[in-house]
């Protein structure tokens, strides 16, 4: 599996950082998603003290699917992500990743955090390699190349721009070749142009590698641009579950805007 990923990634070095020229984009249909990890939540509830954050939630995510979770702040979407990561335990119900509990599936799960969370005292490449076994260190180089930062390997994180830091965080998540990547508002702190570049990069890598992805975001347009499926969380439950059938690769445009309007319309009505 490792060599497959390397073969897929190595020709991309330095190219993916720039917006992709239309001619390079592979045609629909998607590459096979056999690497992805299926996700299942059965009747999951979570309380914090007297407040119920999530109420009896059941979701099935097919291997390789890209799911976006949107909702107002405080709606429980971050809690959902933390439950999937095994950072919180559900008060009732069950979370299964590829049929196993999150803690047991920990090796095939990574998170890309909003604030990057790079170790300031480790170089870029050491950050990407964090947690890799000695024999797998080559994956870190490949992953860093796949986000177009191979030439920054030896630098301290603090000299990178916000967008570059997030690309390193993405490379770190990819390096373990996880079956599921959880994206916690990963682009929330970036400027509009950098965000568009990052969205294209994430979509491209996801299409090539085929991991499952759960993206938590407050940006409905971002959800419409990236996801196969959008879940709207409101009052601790799933208020809306819609499929997004726009051909990939996607660019911001009329089709994406229509999906965004649909979700926003529902949000504003309620």
């Amino acid at each position, binding site marked *: 599996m490792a060599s497959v990923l390397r073969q897929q990634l190595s020709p991309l070095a330095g190219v993916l950082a720039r917006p992709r020229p239309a001619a390079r984009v592979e045609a629909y249909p998607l590459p096979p998603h056999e690497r992805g990890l299926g996700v299942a939540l059965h009747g999951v509830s979570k309380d914090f003290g007297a407040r119920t954050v999530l109420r009896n939630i059941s979701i099935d995510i097919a291997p390789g699917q890209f799911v976006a979770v949107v909702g107002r702040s405080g709606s429980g979407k971050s809690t959902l992500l933390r439950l999937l990561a095994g950072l919180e335990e559900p008060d009732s119900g069950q979370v299964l990743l590829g049929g196993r509990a999150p803690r047991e599936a920990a090796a095939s799960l990574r998170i890309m955090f909003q604030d990057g969370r790079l170790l300031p005292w480790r170089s870029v490449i050491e950050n990407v390699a*964090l*947690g890799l076994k000695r024999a797998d260190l080559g994956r870190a180089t490949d992953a860093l190349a796949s986000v177009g930062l191979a030439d920054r390997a030896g630098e301290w994180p603090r000299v990178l721009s916000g967008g570059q830091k997030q690309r390193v965080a993405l490379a770190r998540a990819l390096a*373990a070749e996880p079956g599921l990547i959880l994206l916690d508002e990963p682009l929330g702190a970036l400027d509009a142009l950098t965000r568009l570049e990052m969205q294209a990069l994430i979509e491209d890598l996801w299409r090539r590698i085929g991991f499952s992805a759960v993206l938590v975001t407050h940006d409905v347009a971002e959800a419409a641009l990236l996801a196969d499926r959008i879940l709207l969380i409101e009052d601790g439950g799933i208020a809306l579950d819609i499929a997004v059938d726009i051909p990939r690769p996607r660019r911001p445009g009329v089709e994406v805007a229509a999906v965004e309007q649909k979700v926003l319309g529902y949000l504003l009505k309620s």
Partner: protein
Amino acid sequence: MRFLPSQKTLLSWAVPLALMVVWEIASVSGVIPPHKLPPPHRVVMAGWHMLRKGELVRDVLVSTGRAAAGFAIGGGLGFVFGLLAGVSRTAETTVDSSLQMLRMVPHLALIPLVILWFGIGESAKIFLVALGVFFPIYYNTYHGIRGIDTGLLEMARIQGLTKFELFREVIFPGALPSIMVGIRYALGIMWLTLIVAETIAGNAGIGFMTMNAREFMQTDVVLLGILLYALLGKLIDVGARRIEGSALAWHPSFGSN
């Protein structure tokens, strides 16, 4: 690389040099009685004399050895306890509150007790130094670990780090800026404690040298001892800064790049 001192460096030495000249003239001409404050050249000559007899090197080595032994013992224990209190809540509640109480006792106030326990030999001096450096290193290690961004710890958990990797990659480097502050503070205390401890009694060391010289009214040797303490203290501080600069190269306020 510059090999010649800049104008600024030369200027910063101008006032101390001028003072030395004034001191020399005042002392030689008799304005200052030489038995109270001998002229600089006599201090230098006393140093040269003792260096040739081999006493100076022996005394400096004995003092440095005491400082190093005390620092290694006290600093090592301080680091271990700080680490324990930093990573374990149980250790924090049991160790920290007791140590915080002990911290209130000035360690030099224990000198009479320490003499009763250890006599006036080496162990008394090393014990006092160890006690003095323990607390700053304990405290700064403990607080350095507590101050680590919890987001980084969570990230490390997600990345699947083992306990040892967590220590090597996150906890130790994260606490290092604070530990270095503790070390530099402890080095100051180490020296001060040693000076006081060496005046107790003994038969070697810079303190012994100066106390002995006082008996024989050798003011130049007393001055030499004081200058030696200052010089060694400065050397250690420069060394600590060097280590800090390379160990914290990633840090915007310490790093060189």
